[in-house]
């Protein structure tokens, strides 16, 4: 029996053969294409359609961009250079970029000031956006509004210093009294800040801004993309505290406060921003005291802040509602009163949940700042639709200008939304 075995097996391989490469069609780009582009006939048709769509988009735009003229003094000159060939006239951007970015009246020798403020903005928001950075940086964030104000508007340095002193004074009073009662600390702090501002306002000499270190720039001279950035940043940061207050008010057990907050939120959310801007431009000045006049920039900031506060309030309300009821009950059972419970237990968690929503509101709001062009403010879109397209040299250069505006907004908004997605992944502490 033993030799039968030896005879049936004529050959036994005692070494491993080297593994053969996979078939050509199941590897590399071909495999990838088969799986991702041509998996089924229907899929193949879709791929071809998509390719055709891409061709349709690129065929006219690519030569237009690549052929672009970057230096010329007017559209007519551009056309002369192109000699009838397809090509963009990007010269309008090289010629007018300061106007697009800073508006047409911001003094050109002062461009470094808003630019510096813009760079500092990143330093200031970094500790807010990224939790890993040293907490000490938050001090700079606190100082940033005053620095930015001073850089952009200039004038006497006493104004931002006074504002800062008022805030610090108010905060000190708040810290002193908050251990006793939140309300006492809060209102005491506000009262202290107002008192410091009022007294300080009387102390600042009237002509102080005339011989200031930084030349004062009136807010009417602000414009271009800078105006969009300023409106966006100011209004979002102002509206977050107001939004929190509104959200808490809407959840309040006090009927009067609840009704006021609900009416405010629903009213603001029910009307388009453009009507609120009309209010700012044609109505609001009637509501200020007769002997004062508040400039358009401030009026627009007020209206946009109200607008975004209402939306942020709804986002935060969602965050509050998403917290398990146990958290509220736990806070109560510890014997914390309402302000303590909110400050120490509820809001930190609710705000954490709401951050992606707040960022979405911020992006939407930033895009909506372009609407101020409708009420004759020269933001980026306003500059394009007004002075630049109306000028003799550049009358008719639509695509280059609109494309530039679109690109600027895309870069900023896409950046923020990528951050929001990163944050969402970071904050996802639950197990999914």
């Amino acid at each position: 029996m033993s030799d039968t075995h030896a005879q049936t097996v004529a050959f036994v391989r005692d070494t491993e053969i080297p593994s053969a490469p996979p078939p050509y069609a199941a590897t590399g780009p071909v495999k990838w294409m088969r799986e991702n582009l041509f998996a089924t006939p229907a899929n193949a048709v879709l791929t071809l359609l998509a390719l055709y769509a891409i061709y349709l988009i690129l065929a006219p735009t690519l030569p237009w961009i690549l052929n672009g003229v970057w230096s010329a003094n007017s559209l007519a000159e551009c056309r002369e250079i192109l000699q009838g060939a397809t090509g963009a006239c990007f010269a309008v951007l090289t010629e007018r970029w300061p106007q697009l970015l800073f508006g047409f009246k911001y003094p050109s020798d002062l461009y470094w000031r808003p630019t510096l403020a813009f760079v500092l903005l990143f330093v200031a928001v970094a500790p807010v956006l990224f939790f890993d950075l040293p907490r000490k940086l938050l001090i700079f964030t606190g100082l940033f509004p005053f620095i930015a104000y001073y850089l952009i508007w200039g004038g006497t340095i006493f104004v931002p210093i006074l504002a800062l002193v008022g805030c610090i004074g108010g905060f000190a009073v708040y810290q002193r009294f908050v251990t006793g009662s939140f309300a006492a600390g809060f209102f005491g702090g506000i009262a202290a800040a107002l008192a410091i501002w009022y007294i300080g306002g009387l102390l600042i000499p009237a002509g102080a801004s005339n011989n200031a270190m930084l030349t004062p720039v009136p807010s009417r001279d602000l414009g271009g993309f800078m105006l969009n950035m300023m409106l966006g940043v100011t209004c979002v940061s102002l509206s977050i505290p107001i939004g929190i207050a509104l959200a808490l008010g809407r959840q309040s057990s006090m009927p009067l406060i609840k009704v006021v907050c609900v009416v405010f939120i629903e009213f603001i959310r029910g009307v388009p921003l453009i009507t609120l801007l009309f209010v700012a431009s044609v109505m609001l000045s009637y509501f200020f005291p007769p002997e004062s006049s508040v400039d358009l920039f401030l009026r627009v900031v007020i209206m946009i802040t109200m607008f975004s506060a209402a939306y942020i309030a709804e986002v935060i309300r969602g965050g509050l509602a998403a917290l398990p009821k146990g958290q509220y009950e736990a806070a109560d059972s510890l014997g914390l009163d309402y302000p303590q419970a909110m400050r120490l237990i509820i809001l930190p968690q609710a705000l954490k949940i709401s951050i992606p929503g707040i960022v979405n509101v911020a992006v939407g709001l930033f895009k909506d700042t372009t609407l101020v062009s409708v009420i004759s403010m020269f933001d980026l879109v306003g500059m394009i639709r007004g002075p630049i397209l109306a000028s003799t040299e550049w009358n008719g250069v639509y695509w280059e200008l609109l494309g530039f505006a679109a690109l600027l907004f895309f870069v900023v908004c896409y950046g923020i939304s990528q951050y929001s997605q990163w944050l969402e992944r970071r904050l996802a502490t639950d197990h999914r």
Partner: protein
Amino acid sequence: MTTLTDPPRESFRLSMLINDTRYRSLTFQAIALLVLIIAFAYLTNNLLTNLAAAGLNIAYDFLGTPAGYDINQTLVEYDSQSSHARAAVVGILNTLLVAFLACITATVFGVIAGVLRLSNNWLVSKLMAFYVEIFRNIPVLIWIIIIFTIMTAVLPGPREFRGDNPTSSMFLDLFAFTNRGIYIPAPVWGPGSMVVVATFIASVIGVIAYRRYATNLLYSTGRLLPMGWPSLAIFFVPTILMFYILGRPIGLDIPELRGFNFQGGIKVGGPLIALWFALSIYTGAFIAENVRAGIQAVSKGQTEAASALGLRPGRVMNLVVLPQALRVIIPPLISQYLNITKNSSLAIAVGYADITATLGGITLNQTGRAIECVLLLMLFYLTISLSISAIMNVYNNSVKLKER
């Protein structure tokens, strides 16, 4: 929130207003009310003083006076002698029209893009991601201006249809695409046309009845009737037969170039198209994200269970995933509809005669009644928003998961 221990009965002291939880909320509300009243009084006082100083008053009688201007797109009868109020009504109808159209097309764009973004096809899903990102991250005002500029700059003017060797010609000799708008043939209702229409309506009902019958049959006996071609047949055949039997009673009024413009047919104005398209493609990007989120919210087990039952991928989507996803999709979808309505106020940038352009634009310009016009404008938008929210609440309650 507050612990209610039974405090010993004691006489009321003033400090209890602050310290006692039973009275504290009353105190706060009283203070809030006081602050509110003072703020309102202050603002009203300023308003009245300012108006008195300027010698103005708040009055709405300007609404009854003749508007004096013409509007290019009117859904109701209107001429320059009609009142400002009538002009406002024209504006309201135009707003509603563009909002309605944009809601429909935005939903179509959004659903297609949202579903395709989840496609296995790499190229298609990337292309859809590109569409969504590019439209979501650029302001709608810029999109409206861009699309309006495309309309006017790329499409030919009526002038180019003229002459012996026109540079442009009508599509199928029926449609004219010009930069002033799109002209489409209008039906002319001849005698007997109502019979054709009635047949058509009857066949629509027939299709629905047939499909319902087939579904019932499938559920009760398991017999599967063909759905596709009988539906098509019921839909088309009787109407077409009737149309020819009655000697083609419905004619077409084909637009044709006369004078400066195309005459005849139905004109869909350029500003309407630009606004409509811009709003729908912009909002479509947002809806696509909602749809994607909704589909992804349906747990994978559902899809796998459906596949395990032997359903084809299309049926998995239609019968299992979409019905469940809808519950997640619809609320944000309705708030997108609300956004469309509000964003339609940007019509002002393209010269479409919506309510912001008539009441908040020309009427305001001509009468100078800024406060009145802006208040009315806000009132209109508020009414629309609140009604849509009310509908949404009703819907939300009706689709709420009924836990048994």
